């Protein structure tokens, strides 16, 4: 049996072994991979990165825990970036199962911002994140379309108090903020129809810059909005999340996941190529012989 035949008729257990080895190694050893960054993700990162301290951004978290794997990493990366840069953030959760999850993420990021950190070569000193000063979490209310419309008039209409029951007027950071006009941009993280509502009832009526974070399957449907300028950036699925983490120099679950994905895909591709080389050479030999 020559080498070509061997390449062609490799026992599949070798394939299994290599896939297992690569997955386990890339899973267990944390190293970062370089990813190509697509312009639509870069746009989101650059927008937030060029904001000045004390600027306010609005993060709408409208996904269910079921699509947590894809959207959570975006949420973490953006919130951490905002807090590090001393931006102020308003959160809302228009999906029924969202609020507790949002609260948990805010607390987790606040904990991590307490430590010093260096991102993209810039040193940030750790600091205490305070509710009402650095962020406001509005909470959940039903009828997303109406809520989005009403917030265009004043955040206090749908949310007289925040998630924790404090009146918005009593929060220091909300003092100068009435509606979307005082917000630099809205980042909508969505796993369903809420992104359409943000476009129709929010962006097209009140004209604020809108960026979308979507699940992988959804993202292709929203590219037309990118072209029409209604949306300035899109992060799609785990890949979009990983690109954002890479841009923010804040590796998390998405980059971890992509590291495994990239190498697992690579192993499979290498096996396909090996099989084909063996096949083509064997066929050539057969023709000659």
């Amino acid at each position, binding site marked *: 049996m020559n080498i070509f035949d061997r390449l062609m008729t490799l026992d599949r*257990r070798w394939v*299994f072994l290599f896939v*297992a080895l690569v*997955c*386990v190694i890339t*899973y*267990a050893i944390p190293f970062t991979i370089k990813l190509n960054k697509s*312009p639509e993700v870069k746009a989101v990162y650059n927008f937030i990165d060029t904001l000045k301290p004390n600027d306010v951004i609005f993060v709408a978290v409208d996904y269910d825990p079921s699509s947590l*794997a894809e959207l959570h990493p975006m949420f973490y990366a953006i919130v951490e970036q905002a807090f590090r840069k001393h931006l102020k953030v308003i959160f809302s959760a228009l999906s029924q199962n969202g609020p507790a999850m949002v609260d948990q993420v805010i607390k987790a990021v606040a904990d991590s911002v307490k430590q010093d950190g260096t991102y993209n070569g810039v040193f940030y000193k750790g600091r205490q994140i305070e509710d009402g000063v650095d962020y406001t979490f509005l909470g959940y209310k039903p009828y997303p379309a109406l809520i989005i419309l009403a917030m265009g008039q004043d955040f206090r209409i749908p949310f007289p108090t925040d998630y924790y029951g404090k009146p918005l007027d009593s929060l220091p950071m909300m003092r100068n903020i009435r509606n979307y006009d005082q917000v630099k941009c809205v980042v909508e993280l969505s796993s369903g129809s809420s992104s359409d509502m943000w476009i129709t009832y929010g962006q097209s009526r009140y004209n604020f810059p809108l960026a979308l974070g979507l699940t992988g399957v959804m993202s*292709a449907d929203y*590219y*037309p909005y*990118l*072209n029409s300028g209604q949306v300035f950036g899109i992060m799609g699925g*785990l890949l979009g999340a990983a690109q954002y983490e890479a841009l923010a120099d804040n590796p998390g679950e998405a980059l971890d*996941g992509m590291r*495994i*994905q990239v190498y*697992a*895909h690579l192993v*499979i591709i290498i096996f396909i190529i090996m099989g084909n080389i063996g096949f083509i050479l064997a066929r050539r030999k057969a023709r000659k012989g």
Partner: protein
Amino acid sequence: MNNSRIWSIVIFAAAVLIFGLSWIIIGSQAGHNLTDAFLVTVAAFLTLSILSFLYKDNPYYKFAEHLFVGVSAAYWMSVGFWSTFVGNLLPRISPSLCTYFGVPYKGFDIFFFIPLILGVFLLMRLSSKMGWLSRWSLAFIVGTTAGLNLIRYLRSDFISQVSNTFVPLVTDWRGIGPFFSDFSLSITGQFAMSLSNWVIFVGVFCGLIYFFFSKEHKGAFGYASRMGIWVLMITFGASFGYTVMGRVSLLVGRLTFLFHDWLGLVK
């Protein structure tokens, strides 16, 4: 004693040792007790038993497989019994059985005797004499669902798919779009949009031609049918490649269970 027998004893001993140790070590850690350590160890043992199938069929896999079949069959049986038989049927036919099972009685309904009778007919299969009665039950199920499916397919798979092909092949020209500048193939640029609409139309057309059964695929018809199978193959390749990501994620989930939840090696 031959070689393979020695090996199987060695492997068995190693398995006992590893899982025994795991039970004791996890159980002795803070925040754990022996019961949940045992449960996690069992789950890990079963996980590895199933994975061992990749190497070859073996006693551990056989054990896990057979156990899984028994447990899962009974699980569905139990859930079905409680939710449907006790939950839907009994409240309509028998107050005394309702009290026994602790479900509220909803009042007698003669209509619920029909499925009861048909259900009993189905069980008649076990008797060789009355077995033909079970066909009445089957006919009931098949007839109802045939009518239901006939409509369902026409409505959802059909009319909407057909009307979705109604897209203009020449879009209103508003410039070439970003097709050549940044190779934007998403359906955004004007050029790419027209092109995509053409591809969809030709793809659907040729695909349907491929599925013609009563005409020989020769000449122009044959070309269209070849084209159709090309489009199908592109799609199958792309879908296959696209699924790899999700499948690898599933494996990562299991790795997390083994390395994090069980061994506690990776944070």
